[in-house]
């Protein structure tokens, strides 16, 4: 696969860069959110930082990553092949991107309600749930990065 990467046509490079940049931002946002929410110890500023990292870093990164994924998928003509011929590393990538996107949306809604309720001194349970979602998403993203890079099967 590394040899394949070396002979990749130049026209694939930019879509790959877009996909990769988006994925890097997603993971960066998730690490920031997870660390902030986990280390907040009830401090409102860090809880807000955790939530806003998901909203202002992870979500835009996810959109760029997903658009880039579709672009490079189309450039590499995987969409011309029947599903049974699609390698598992692409399947893992799509699974994590699409289900991960849903989990991200749910965590943003739950966390958003939590941040709103912080005004009344409440909402910490909802932000703990957001932390759990972030940890799950981060773990799934790392599996996807491993699959995309190592290309099992």
């Amino acid at each position, binding site marked *: *696969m*590394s*040899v394949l990467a*070396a002979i990749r046509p*130049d026209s694939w*490079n930019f879509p*790959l*860069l877009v996909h*990769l*940049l988006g*994925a*890097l*931002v997603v*993971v*960066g*946002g*998730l*690490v*920031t959110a997870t*660390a*902030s929410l986990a*280390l907040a110890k009830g*401090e409102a*500023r*860090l809880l807000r*930082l955790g939530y806003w*990292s998901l909203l202002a*870093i992870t979500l835009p990164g996810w959109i760029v990553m997903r658009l880039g994924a579709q672009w490079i998928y189309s450039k590499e003509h995987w969409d011309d092949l029947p599903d049974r011929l699609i390698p598992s590393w692409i399947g893992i990538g799509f699974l994590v991107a699409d289900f991960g996107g849903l989990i991200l949306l749910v965590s943003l809604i739950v966390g958003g309600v939590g941040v709103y309720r912080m005004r009344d001194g409440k909402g910490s349970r909802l932000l703990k749930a957001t932390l759990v979602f972030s940890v799950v998403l981060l773990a799934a993203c*790392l599996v996807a*990065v*491993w699959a*995309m*890079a*190592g*290309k*099992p099967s």
Partner: protein
Amino acid sequence: MRFDDWMLAFHVLSAFSLVAGLILFWALIVVGRRTDTPAGTLSLNPLAKVGSATVGIGMVGTIVFGLWLAFSIGNYNLWDAWIIIALVLWFVGAAVGRKTGEAFLEGPRKAEELQSAGQTGPNAELLALNRTSRGLLLHSLTSLIVLLILIDMIWKPWA
């Protein structure tokens, strides 16, 4: 998966760790710009430690696994232009990153001084240190260098 595929996966995961640390520091820079109290400044330390750890893992992992791949994969050589460019950028990035860390440590140092002197209220000098424009410039430069490494890794010029 062959052994080299695992090494490539760890190389890429290290790159993700490095960029995650840089992004975490960007978030801290934004928060730090509105922080003028010793307690507020020092409460960001645990997050900064996470950032330092992820950057450290990323820097070590990218160079170790990257060099392994350069030696192990038949059609790559250490003297390939794109690998030399990446190595030069990595070393420049490491040096600039170290300077960035030094610039952003001045705020927490001042916060500790103020706290030990019993001054817990807002402090203009502390705010100025937390808003260090030198640190901001250096962090921007580090981020740009990492972006250039990424572009070099994808385009592999003169490969």
